[in-house]
């Protein structure tokens, strides 16, 4: 059966050779136009956020607070849209925990804010990863998220502004460092090391990271599987707990801004980008092009499943307002969340059992 299907696909492929993207074209497009482009967007949004926070600190009006909050949400998009490819420097340079450790350590943050110490970037740099990055900024800009996802600008103290400025400056610094590691130099201790984009887009037996184009394709597929699993069985399942009585708000990611469902959607958007090669306005071959060579119906079905998962995640949003952290405390919200989890797990199984094997066909 499989052989037959393969043969039919091979025939279809022969017919379509002229347009079909090669593995190398897919790898190039995804590496440069999806991954590198996402990191460049992240660095530029983080710089905007830093500027918006400085403006807010200088002039703490409601309008400037709203702009800083928008800038935080905008920076969150490329970061969450990068989670299908958490390989390379984001990990080896230890950048991921500096940007996105959660839960935030509110106890320690409050104790620092109560102290008389001058808060500088170097001071915050020396603190734990759970006292810096996205969620520290989120807590300071949006409040505790319990009954609302914003707070009056007047609630921000001078000490909180100091901390905000320091930690957003670090976020901008770390994201610029990450973008540079992909574009220019993946190992700052070795100035002749190229950008990681050059490494991953040129696999081969002597490439110390990826010995073949198949290996890079596998990394892409495994990366998609990794975030599908994490959203379903970590980010969503952990806070939901076994039943409504064991639901735990403390386990929700981005609980202060009520941005969780957008985070999860963007996580799956990163799967979509790797799969289709579409990122923002850019279109090009992604992993789908490879699957198409083997089984065009499967290729289209997977794309549909990805889009469906994104819709199911957005559908969790409570009609009366709130976000994931509120939905998991209602029976119908939990039912909608479970539907999304089931779809994510089904897509994970499709990736593992049907997409991954196409790499060897």
């Amino acid at each position, binding site marked *: 059966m499989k052989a037959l299907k393969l043969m039919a696909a091979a025939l279809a492929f022969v017919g379509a050779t002229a347009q079909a993207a090669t593995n190398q074209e897919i790898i190039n497009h995804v590496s440069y136009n999806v991954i590198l482009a996402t990191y460049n967007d992240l660095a530029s949004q983080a710089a905007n956020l830093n500027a918006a926070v400085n403006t807010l600190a200088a002039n703490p009006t409601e309008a400037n607070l709203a702009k800083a909050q928008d800038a935080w949400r905008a920076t969150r998009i490329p970061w969450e849209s990068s989670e299908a490819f958490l390989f390379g420097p984001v990990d*080896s340079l230890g950048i991921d925990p500096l940007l996105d450790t959660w839960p935030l350590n509110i106890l320690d943050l409050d104790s*620092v804010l109560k102290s008389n110490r001058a808060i500088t970037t170097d001071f915050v740099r020396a603190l734990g990863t759970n006292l810096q990055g996205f969620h520290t900024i989120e807590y300071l800009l949006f409040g505790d998220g319990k009954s609302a996802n914003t707070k009056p600008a007047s609630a921000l103290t001078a000490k909180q502004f100091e901390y905000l400025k320091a930690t957003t400056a670090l976020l901008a610094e770390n994201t610029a460092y990450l973008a540079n590691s992909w574009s220019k130099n993946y190992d700052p*201790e070795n100035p002749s090391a190229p950008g*990681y984009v050059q490494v991953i887009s040129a696999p081969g037996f002597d490439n110390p990271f990826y010995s073949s184009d198949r290996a890079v394709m*596998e990394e892409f597929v495994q990366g998609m599987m990794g975030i599908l699993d994490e959203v379903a069985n970590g980010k969503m399942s952990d806070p939901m707990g076994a039943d409504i009585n064991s639901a735990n708000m403390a386990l929700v990611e981005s609980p202060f801004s009520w941005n969780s469902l957008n985070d999860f959607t963007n996580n799956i958007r990163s799967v979509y980008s790797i799969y289709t090669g579409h990122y923002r306005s850019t279109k090009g071959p992604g992993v789908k092009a490879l699957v198409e060579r083997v089984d065009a119906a499967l290729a289209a079905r997977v794309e549909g499943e990805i889009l469906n998962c994104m819709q199911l995640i957005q559908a969790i949003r409570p009609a009366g307002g709130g976000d994931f952290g509120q939905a998991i405390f209602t029976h119908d919200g939990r039912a909608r969340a479970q539907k999304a989890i089931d779809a994510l797990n089904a897509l994970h199984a499709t990736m593992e059992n049907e997409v991954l094997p196409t790499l060897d066909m």
Partner: protein
Amino acid sequence: MKAWILLSAFNIFVGGVAHAAPFVDMDYVHAVKSGGDTTIMIKGESIRAFRNPATNLTEEEIARHLTGDALFERNFSDDASRFDHGLGPVFNNTSCNACHSKDGRGALPVILPGQEWVQLRQNESIFLRISIEDGIQRPKTAQNRWGAPVAVPGFSDQLFHLGSMGVRKDLPGAGQAQVWMKYDKSTFTYPDGSVVQLRKPVFKITAAYDEYFDSVTGETKSRLYEKDVKTSPRMGTPMIGLGLLEAIKESDILALAARDLSAEGVKGSVNWVFDIEKAMANDPYPVSMGRFGLKNNTPSVLHQSLGALRGDIGVTNYAFPMESIFGTALFESFVQDPTVPAPLEASDQVANDLVFYSQTLAVPSRRNVTEAEVIRGAQIFHQVSCTSCHQPSFVTGPHKIAAFSNQKIYPYTDMLLHDMGDGLADGRQDFDANGRQWKTRPLWGMGHTHTINPRAGFLHDGRARTVEEAILWHGGEGEYSKNKFVNLPKADRSALIQFIRSL
């Protein structure tokens, strides 16, 4: 054709070194399933190569592994009102995953161009062991904690550079002291003229919590700065196949220790170490064969994992119920009443799930085993006697997790301590391990190291950026093989490295 080549290679090698080396099963040259039936089959490379459960676990065991997986990534908090409470008061990191990133090797902190010293902060995969010693080995008694390193008074046997807020009023976020690192750089020149740059991290300690200025001598003093204090760095190691290593029969390891490899200058010895499980069972002599830790200073995955949970992260548990710094001035200044015992921070379920996870990570299969260069490299591996210490295979004995019992495995370690020479010496005893000895690292999974973490470092302190650098640091009992390696033609050296990358 292939069978013929293998057979002749086998004959040449076994015949050639039979006087020195005992039987090495040459089937390793072609063996694919490094972890026997537990092996996860991986064709390419990916950062998830070390993240899979052993494939022959039961469904129930896989569920338990996945529960442990989430705990391994948990960021512990020092906030007593939180579910994930337990961090600190002093620690080296906030999660298991932070040092064993994606269950692989750690990397040294980045030193940016123009910097000399860099401070160890959170998010590093390295810490320092510390102890005081006089160089005298004593019989193991309860009084000397069965031969354990002697804690530095006022400190512990591990230096905690991070602390909860409030531990150090003067330095928020700092622990017992601050730790700094820089590199000593050197070069190695092959007989054929090729040059390799080497680097070795050196550490300095500042801002110890008990530091004071001695106006008589004009020096800044701390018990930690005294000359009898020994320090030794430890880098996070891969988490794969640990249950299998635990299942290797003690008799097989003792047999390897009893070999006569004097012609190669190789000895190999066992570290007999304190065993917390025996102690909990009231065994009058709680000492067992060491298997884990870079000096084999712990006997089991349970002892190693729960010791690290309490030590590295500061989360007390049933095996290690007291905070690491219990009884020190720093602890007493931090807690309200040090005489009131605190409740355990990790539930027994959390502790046991973490141990189970640590035992059950799969070893990936080998790749590229049919490449001619890889096959040649495998044969050179034996020819230059790497196999004397990096023992290719074992058949495991019984293990309480049935999946690990009676498996033919290819870990490439003899599980023994070896004198590795001056270059790697740390000068610090650890039970029976002296300041020049290290355990033979298992080589399985090596080829995935840099995909998982492009900056990962080999050896106990992560100094070696490549397999080649790691080989060049071999001295002492490794000198014989290293010399044979460096005298090989360049093509043969790269074939050997390609073989190691196939693991």
